[in-house]
């Protein structure tokens, strides 16, 4: 278990880090309401890329919530990550329509070709692989999301090519 | 009438259950009257598990290939198998190694990391049985006819479980006296 610093971020640090200000805007917009925790975490995730301890602690202070509660909520939801993500993201949909159209084979391909498994990032930090429960693009199964763009009717080859291109960037 | 062919087996356990069995003290005479001990680390010199055993108490979890082989043989050759003590019933202490992910880290920890100098993992073929990937309770591998928990089961509990068996009755396994683990 890693030791964690509990000092309140100093005003200097916050000035340096404009991102906390972005967070403040959302917090203020929600009038520091505790039920806005998930909204604030969404903002934090998109602003910082992932949820570091100091960010969670900052949110806990601003919303006047116990840190244990903030951590509990942040780890309940799949979309919040406590680890930094890769420069590119590849999400393979594992919804039922995709499943019956062989989406597990897409994952196998990435595991075999790049030793990349769901939830992992390549060692060079370039590509993160994730899975989705269903992205609602069932008509185009099997589907994947490359850097936020939904792409339908994928094959092991098409997915491999996409990841290969990113790795060679 | 032929005597009941009775056996006890010691797999991956501390032998505490067998010690508790010996705590039957003078009842051992009654037992001896009723049964013929055909295999037991504490009651017989026979080295191979015989055929046509009526009742067998199996102490310990299944941790290595030798344990597994013996357990399977016990099942084949025995009418009524008793899972004897927490290690056989639950896995208990021997299963602590399971969280280390497989036998290699366990052996390394044991024989190399904790050795004072020149540690090495024993590997003589045919002498040191291979560890199974995971330690499992007895019923993971074979069907069990009666579970007798306890670490160890007290002599009284052993008495209340096996003497009905000798009379051909199923013991009543209920309540704190008969069922408490640990």
């Amino acid at each position, binding site marked *: 278990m890693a030791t964690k610093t509990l000092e309140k971020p100093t005003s200097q640090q916050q000035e340096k880090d404009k991102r906390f200000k972005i967070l403040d805007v959302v917090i203020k917009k929600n009038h520091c309401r505790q039920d806005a925790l*998930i909204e604030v975490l969404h903002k934090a995730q998109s602003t910082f890329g992932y949820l570091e301890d100091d960010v969670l602690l900052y949110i806990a202070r601003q919303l006047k919530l116990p840190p244990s509660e903030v951590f509990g*909520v942040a780890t309940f939801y799949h979309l919040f990550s406590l680890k930094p993500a890769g420069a590119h993201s590849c999400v393979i949909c594992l919804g039922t329509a995709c499943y019956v159209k062989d989406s597990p084979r897409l994952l196998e391909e990435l595991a075999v070709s790049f030793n990349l498994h769901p939830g992992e990032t390549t060692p060079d930090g370039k590509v993160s692989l994730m899975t989705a429960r269903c992205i609602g693009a069932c008509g185009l199964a099997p*589907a994947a999301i490359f850097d936020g763009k939904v792409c*339908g009717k994928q094959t092991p080859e098409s997915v491999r090519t996409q990841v290969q291109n990113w790795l060679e960037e | 009438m032929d005597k009941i062919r009775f056996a006890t087996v010691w797999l991956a356990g501390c032998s505490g259950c067998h010690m508790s069995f010996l705590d039957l003290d003078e009842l051992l005479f009654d037992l001896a009257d009723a049964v013929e001990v055909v295999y037991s680390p504490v009651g017989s010199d026979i080295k191979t598990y015989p055929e046509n055993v009526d009742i067998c108490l199996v102490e310990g979890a299944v941790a290595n290939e030798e344990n597994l082989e013996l357990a399977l043989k016990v099942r084949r050759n025995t009418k009524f198998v008793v899972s004897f003590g927490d290690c056989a019933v639950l896995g208990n202490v021997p299963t602590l190694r399971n969280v280390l992910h497989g036998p290699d880290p366990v052996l390394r920890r044991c024989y190399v990391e904790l050795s004072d100098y020149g540690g090495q993992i024993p590997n003589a073929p045919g002498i040191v049985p291979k560890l199974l990937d995971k330690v499992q309770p007895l019923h993971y591998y074979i069907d069990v006819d009666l579970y007798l928990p306890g670490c160890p089961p007290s002599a009284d509990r052993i008495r209340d479980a096996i003497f009905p068996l000798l009379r051909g009755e199923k013991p009543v396994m209920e309540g704190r006296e008969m069922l408490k683990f640990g």
Partner: protein
Amino acid sequence: MEFSELQRIAAEYQAQRKPIRIRYCHAAGCQSCGSLAVAEALQREVSAQGLTEEVEVCPVGCMRLCGRGCLVDIQGKLYERVRPEDAPSLVASIKDDSITPTAPAGSYDHPFFAYQLPIVLENCGKINPEEIDEYIAVGGYQQLEKVLHSMTPQEVIREITISGLRGRGGAGYPTGLKWSTVAKMPKTPKYVVCNADEGDPGAFMDRSVLESDPHRVLEGMAIAAYAVGANQGYIYVRAEYPLAISRLQKAIQQAKRREILGSQIFGSTFDFKIDIRVGAGAFVCGEETALMASIEGKRGNPRPRPPYPAESGLWGCPTLINNVETFANVVPIIREGGEWFSGIGTATSKGTKVFALTGKVKNTGLIEVPMGTTLHRIVMEMGEGCADGKKVKAVQTGGPSGGCVPVEYFDTPVDYESLKSLGTIMGSGGMIVVDEDTNMVGLARYYMEFCRGETCGKCIPCRTGTVQLYQMLTKILSGEATEKDLESLRQLSALVKETSLCGLGQTAPNPVLSTLRFFEQEYKQLLKS
């Protein structure tokens, strides 16, 4: 805002329209097939061919045949799989009949469309979802206006009750009864919540409705709020639907600007505000008590019911929770009357149901059919069976909470009760067709893997049972299992079903029980002899 104002907006909007319209789908499915590039090419071509005066290229919502995107409609002619390079011939064909467009022509006479009865989807694929005036131009918000000025809340509830509408989220609870329960609660404030956390894998009806006709959901919610006496609404949308979220945001903003949401709506005393809450990736949040916990910013743990949300929901206040499709049914019911609605469908299931037809079926997409339509018609006629000549084996309804219906039972009319008697559920409307190649034990394990990953972990049977069930299914699939394991599978399934705290756990074993019921042979074949 008054009624005359609505009419003026509608008239002005109509007057601005050009006589010839090229409609292209810009819902998520077609967008991912590049519909935006197609639209650009079409627009370019319209200018190049000098038709800007009379032809306009209109973005519209879902055109339903999602598997053949991009879909484009030119004056009632449907084109499939349109690519940007098809634009010149498509535009040219408007003026010159002799030109055959390069894109494949589709047909609205095809059974896929012909058997549909669009009530919920009546505007989908017809109007631009990002433009409130288009919604108003097709009569939008008139029902809200009517309700506020000429109906009492009780009358609204009566109309909904007469219609026989049942919850479209899956369980089929009578909507009128739910509304009247909330309306009768003395405690205030009250809340109206729209459950748009469409989590069933293989279902995308709600997403399509939100992306194609968001205002209809807002109007339905506002009518509901008036009926039950709520002034605040929440739409809980899953974060996986970014396009639906942005369209809802836009719709709410536009409605506020038009003073259709806010204070004293249509000059009445009724105030209503809607906020969006975005989920963060948790299937269990589709369960109403978990959803409410999530709206309150907490872990999405379900809690025991009673008390039901109608009595004690958000922040302990009476809360009406309905699903997207349920709210989308409100406007036509108010417009045409409850009697009209109850004339559609079967004795116990009224109206239509939207299904997402996917999997190993030739025509994938969104369909809306009257309740009581047979599975045969849906899968074999509208969907035309499997694409590659394979035999259809079964259809899975209700997602991870549902079960499969084998092809022998395809003459079953689809309604709440018939599906239940077959051991599955209506669910939210996902229909996944599987063919003869699909291993049903593997499918059951797929769903168990899903539930194992989605259980919140609060109650023992669901948290630990789903893991054990998954392991048992894996053992069976690996060929290591015996008859005894099959028995354990049944026992544990019964335990998880009967003892779990919430709907997720209570229905998690359904795919196992259902495949065991209809495809036991497939399990038996995998057993060790």
